[in-house]
């Protein structure tokens, strides 16, 4: 999330995403979305410009956004959650938007179901019906293991060299 602008204009009371809303979001062009964001931002124009440039450079100059970006902007849940929902739907987050911006029915239906599943969960949390579980993720890298090995190796070398010196003298 840190690499993305916080979608202040998306702050709202929770409401469910309808199938039609999702469909319009998927078929509306990326350029329109960005223009809207700039307008809604008002004084923060430069921020979204930077974002636009970043998105452009990531795709190597092509003007087609990925499914993840489109959904993230359309629903206002952010890129991480949109990726989660796309994976839930069994789709590929980095899938390019088709040239005519028309997604096939199966894709849209899968997305609608995944979004509904997530919003069911969220609605239960907001109403206080269920208490969310907690997850702690661990850091990936484990440092310091190889350096201790090399240390004992070099110690062996030192002992070896000193034994040579002793024999030589």
């Amino acid at each position, binding site marked *: 999330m840190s690499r993305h602008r916080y979608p202040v204009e998306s702050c709202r009371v929770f409401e469910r995403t309808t199938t039609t809303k999702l469909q319009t979001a998927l078929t509306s062009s990326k350029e329109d979305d960005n223009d809207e964001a700039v307008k809604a931002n008002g004084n923060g124009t430069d921020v979204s410009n930077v974002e636009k440039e970043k998105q452009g450079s990531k795709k190597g100059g092509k003007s087609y956004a990925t499914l993840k970006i489109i959904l993230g902007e359309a629903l206002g849940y952010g890129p991480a959650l949109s990726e989660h929902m796309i*994976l839930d739907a069994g789709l590929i987050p980095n899938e390019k938007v088709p040239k005519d911006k028309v997604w096939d029915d199966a894709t849209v239906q899968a997305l609608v179901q995944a979004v509904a599943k997530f919003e069911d969960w969220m609605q239960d949390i907001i109403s206080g019906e269920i208490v969310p579980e*907690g*997850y*702690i993720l661990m850091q990936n890298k484990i*440092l*310091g293991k190889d350096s201790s090995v090399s240390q004992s190796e070099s110690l062996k070398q030192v002992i070896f060299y000193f034994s040579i*010196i002793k024999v030589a003298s």
Partner: protein
Amino acid sequence: MQIYDEFCPILLNQFKSRDHTKFETFDLALDEYYSKIESQRSEQQHKAKENSALQKLNKIRNDQVGTHVQTTTLV
């Protein structure tokens, strides 16, 4: 030792392959995270310092061994 990275109330699909610990409630996860993260971070920094000091020592040691071998071959 495992070092905590982040916490969340829902296990995102993209993180399922990563090492994680599950807690009954989000509150429990937060308690656990914040009670240990400070000490884990300071320990990590301490280890990094220790490693860099050891590397320095090893470098000097290797230098010394090199010169010793040179002098013995000269004799």
